């Protein structure tokens, strides 16, 4: 069986969750059967040379859900797709989060880094605390979805217009967890990494980088790694990641 493949996938549902953030559910039984939380897809936008790498938000029995942000021309065109349209998807790609439902897991998400953690919360069957950060109230997404997994959900906003005013990592004070998984902007990942270090638990961070092939062939999406013996080298977000054990990263 192929570990990934490209397929024409029917868009089943599409809506705008918050300004510029879109929620797509596509029908793709073969790809969904292969997918694991934290992996990603390379989505073709006709007329564009490079596919758009978009994280898998949630994995259904025969569907994949993608929540993505309009960042440029390609994602803008993608956002205009309507239910019934076919989308060319290459998936699932990369290494996802190492999920152990027996371990209480802290999920740290920021902004458009929140969606890939939903699939993790679902796979953990509720044995998770999700601390999710957004710029303001209008940009809060997926709160109900996280609650529906049974996870404890705490929200922070930069301006305090919803939930805690401040950093997501503040919300973890007093929470017990055995492993930390994070996805979001660089400063948030640094904070999450520091938190895992303080608590002495393993941390896994999901990264992004400008990418071409998505499968490990072109070596475009380099990330500086260390091998544990002090040797530094360039690994690749698409194949070695996007999820990395934080002690393998040279810097966050």
């Amino acid at each position, binding site marked *: 069986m*192929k570990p990934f493949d490209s397929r024409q996938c029917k868009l089943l549902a599409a809506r705008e969750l918050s300004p510029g953030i879109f929620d797509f559910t596509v029908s793709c039984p073969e790809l969904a059967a292969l997918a694991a939380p934290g992996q990603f897809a390379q989505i073709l936008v006709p007329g564009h040379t*490079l596919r758009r790498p978009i994280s898998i938000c949630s994995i259904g029995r025969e569907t994949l859900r993608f929540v993505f942000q309009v960042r440029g021309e390609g994602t803008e065109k993608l956002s205009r797709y309507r239910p019934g349209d076919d989308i060319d998807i290459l998936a699932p790609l990369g290494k996802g989060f190492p999920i152990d439902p027996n371990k209480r897991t802290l999920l740290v998400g920021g902004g458009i880094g929140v969606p890939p953690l939903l699939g993790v919360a679902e796979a953990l069957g509720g044995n998770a605390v999700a601390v999710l950060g957004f710029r303001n109230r209008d940009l809060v997404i997926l709160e109900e979805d996280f609650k529906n997994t049974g996870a404890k959900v705490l929200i922070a906003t930069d301006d305090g217009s919803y939930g805690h005013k401040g950093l997501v990592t503040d919300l973890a004070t007093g929470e017990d967890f055995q492993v930390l998984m994070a996805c979001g902007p660089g400063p948030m990942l640094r904070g999450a990494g520091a938190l895992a270090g303080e608590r002495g638990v393993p941390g896994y961070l999901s990264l992004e980088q*400008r990418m071409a092939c998505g499968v490990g*062939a072109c070596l475009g999406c*380099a990330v500086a790694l260390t091998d544990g013996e002090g040797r530094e080298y360039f690994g690749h977000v698409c194949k070695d990641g996007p999820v990395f054990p934080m002690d393998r990263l040279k810097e966050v």
Partner: protein
Amino acid sequence: MEKNNKLSVNIAGVEFNNPIIAASGTFGFGREYGELYPLSELGGISCKGTTLKERPGNPPPRVTETPGGMLNAVGLQNPGVEHFINEDLPWLSKQGTRIIANIAGSTVEDYCRTAELLNGTAVDMVELNISCPNVKEGGVQFGVTAEGVEGITRAVRERCKKPLMVKLSPNVTDITEMAIAAESGGADALSLINTLTGMRIDINSRRPIIRNNTGGLSGPAVLPVAIRMVWQVCNKVKLPVVGLGGISTWQDAVEMLLAGAVAIQVGTAIFTDPYAPIKIRDGLLEFMDKKGVKSVSELTGGVRPW
């Protein structure tokens, strides 16, 4: 795919089942796309550029999209030729496709040593990469003057026992001079074009998008340049020419053959569609059948210039 004689081509004594070759740097050492289809579907694979010693490559970002294409400055990241020979070649040589080792280096001696190490191996052909624009000492210094091209071709030719294909840079005033120089130096074949040096700048940060500042432009945007250069070169040299640069459809491939190429390489199009090489092969065959073309070599050089 069973052997189809209509599509088979001979390049410098090496028989290829079909004229579709994966271009260096876009296909790794075959393992990733080998998950999607048997590599025997391809005529050959030009492997990721390899050097005498391991190279770390450039810091990121290394790639960015451009209208009709992309820029890259990967910087020849590779594990070194011995790793290629010991870890990748044993597997690759069992895949039923032709293997082209693409070699690069900083000095003439690097190139010669790398080529020598490949002499006793299963590699079918060596592609001399004197056109990588993304590393200071990645060989392009040999590829932009006629003396440089002839000198390095001759030096490697003396120590390389495999058929030798020289990959030319388009970043020159007159590519035909480089082609003639490679022919004089003893090349068995030519491949062209490598990427065109380009640059993009983020208007907010004022930083070049590629960490290397400049990168190599590839993709559909460069196709007309590649067609023109292959046509000009084929009018000046007798060597077989493998055409590449922006080929993404079977129609592009036919154009390239008509311009004079005996075979083509597909690169960036694989990022858009991993199955592009197979679709190009199938489209080419269908076109030939429709037009009553019995051998792909009948298309080579078939352009009727005004």
